[in-house]
């Protein structure tokens, strides 16, 4: 694929692999995942704990622990292939310039002994050469105003703020360099419903007014719909389904996605809640064939073989049930990334 193909893409991920080395084996946290994300869109990555979604977020921003056994694939951000870059170049030119991250438990990720203005300003001072303190401060004011942190808070320390306010500050920090993509890892899981809705309002405004793209990693399917343009369902390190949100929330395709949706408590409607029996497989030695087969009510003999990814219109699903209806089998990472959004 050539550079031009990516002109409307904020992020293209091809065949991303991230394995960790443990004392008793290798954990296959992210196993050959491919997708792409158009500019000014948001993809939601959903799945149970331990399905590899946080690892994928870390792989995208290359914030990796020491025990990485394998890290491969291609990640194009704004048309630029970043996997080939060395760490120093990546740090200077990509991280926080093109892609920034709001980490899990972000509320507690602020430095307790620095004033808010100093920590929010830091990415600017590091990444925009020649910017003066005054200009940087101006930008902090602007971004605080945008995410709804009151004027006077700029001189405060993190402990003086409520959880929701701290979350806004962390979002401001990710936003201040105007990156193409922001990776959000469980941005609201520790917050109250009203605060949660407020944070999503802020994120929507960032998307609509600044044109930022988002990768939203969460286990909370219901609130993720607040931001979702596309939905990517992960299970045991693999991508099980990738669909536009309108189609996904109307009817998920993959049996795992269906069961996950049936487990979401809803305020309206009278359906009985369902749960998924069993537990996800160990990523140390994932089962052969379809990884969900052991818990799947539709499992057939064929599921002993690993299903390919089938394309149904603009949706992708990794399940043998759709063998007949599907338009085609998509196997190359380039094509997989090409289909989505």
């Amino acid at each position, binding site marked *: 694929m050539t550079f031009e193909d990516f002109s409307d893409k904020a992020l293209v991920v091809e065949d991303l692999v991230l394995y960790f080395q443990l004392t008793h084996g290798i954990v296959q946290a992210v196993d050959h995942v491919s997708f792409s994300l158009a500019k000014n869109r948001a993809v939601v990555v959903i799945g*149970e704990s331990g399905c590899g979604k946080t690892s994928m977020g870390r792989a995208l921003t290359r914030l990796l622990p020491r025990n990485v056994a394998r890290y491969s694939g291609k990640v194009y951000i704004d048309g630029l292939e970043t996997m080939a870059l060395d760490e120093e170049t990546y740090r200077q030119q990509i991280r926080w310039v093109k892609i920034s991250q709001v980490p899990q438990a972000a509320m507690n990720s602020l430095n307790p002994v620095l004033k808010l203005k100093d920590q929010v300003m830091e990415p600017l001072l590091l990444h925009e050469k020649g910017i003066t303190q005054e200009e940087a401060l101006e930008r902090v004011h602007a971004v605080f105003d945008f995410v709804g942190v009151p004027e006077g808070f700029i001189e405060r320390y993190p402990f003086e703020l409520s959880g929701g306010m701290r979350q806004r500050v962390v979002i401001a920090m990710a936003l201040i360099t105007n990156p193409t993509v922001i990776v959000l890892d469980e941005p609201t899981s520790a917050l109250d*419903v009203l605060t*949660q809705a407020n944070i*999503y309002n802020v994120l929507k405004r960032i998307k609509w007014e600044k044109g930022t793209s988002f990768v939203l990693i969460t286990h909370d399917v*219901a609130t993720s719909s607040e931001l979702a343009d596309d939905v990517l369902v992960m299970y045991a390190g693999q991508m099980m389904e990738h669909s536009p949100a309108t189609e996904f929330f109307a009817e998920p395709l993959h049996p795992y996605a269906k069961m*996950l949706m049936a*487990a979401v408590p809803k305020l309206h409607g009278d359906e009985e809640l369902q*749960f998924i029996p069993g537990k996800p497989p160990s990523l140390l030695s994932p089962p052969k064939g379809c990884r969900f087969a052991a818990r799947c009510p539709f499992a057939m003999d064929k599921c002993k073989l690993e299903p390919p990814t089938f394309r149904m219109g603009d949706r992708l699903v990794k399940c043998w049930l759709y063998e007949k209806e599907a338009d085609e089998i998509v196997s190359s990472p380039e094509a997989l990334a090409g289909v989505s959004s």
Partner: protein
Amino acid sequence: MSEQQVAVTAQPGEEKDTQEQPLLSVRNLRIWYELKRFGFLHAGYVKAVDDVSFDLPRGEAIAVVGESGCGKSSLMKAILGLVHPYDGQILFEGRDIWEGGAEAMRAYRMKVGYVQQDPYGALPPFMTIRRILEEPLILAGVKDKEERLERVIRSLEEVKVTPPSDFLNKYPHMLSGGQQQRVVIARALIRNPKMLIADEPVSMLDASVRVEILKLLDEVQRERHLSVIYITHDLSTVRYFSERIFVMYAGKLIEKAETYEILRNPKHPYTWALLNAISDPLAENATKLREIPPGEPPSLITPPPGCRFHPRCEKAMQGKCDVEVPPEFRLGGNHEVACWLYEEEGRVA
């Protein structure tokens, strides 16, 4: 503690005469925490719970819903007898739990089970599951080792941690989050309590596991005819479990009604805002901003005069809501709401 009070099988015939009386009555409860004094200067109180009253009938599950800092955890601690009320009473089976000293409090706590929010933190990491579940029985004076083991096994079966023999000698970290929470529930139930207090029992769990635990609690509640207080900030899980909802804001119960009534027909502007902020998984959510009341919950040290929600309420009436505290107005059915909008419609409860 006599053996009879902790007997395995509940006797359905006992205390028939008290059936009409609610199991738990909270009367004008105030939990005020005193701020640090400066010499003789009295700095004031944090009014975490302020004039709260309700009844919990036998065998009924209620939910207390509110945001963090609304006082719901203080309310729970007071009901468990962990903090002393500043004012007001907590009556269990008609008796004030603080009457009769330490021995009476011990006897009271034998009848109350508590399910903590975070199973990882609630189970001691150095004890086996067997030891964790035996502990409450030892404290209750069950001396017979065989009987204790039998009850431990039975309670593990009840919460579906099966086969129990596989788990007895395991340590908490060897269990999944869902299994850990089941053990926490087993521990709360092992002394056959009459009342169970569950503080956000599913907020730390995955969606799928969350449903399993909610279903388990529901089953246990029905089978044992337990009274349950379910404390949560998540209105969307409430309707699968409890019969009535109490909405709490800034230390006060502002609305009480049947679960379906609240969900379908919220009266208080705060309840309305709370319901409006919850998303069902629908694609159109992404196309519009949600309406959220401005501002944040008030300080509990100097709460606003009148209705505590009035600074954020778009329907606030000047000269009324910011002056006088609204009483609870009773509307049709069992719907009670503390809001001046319903002054004409309802009558003071």
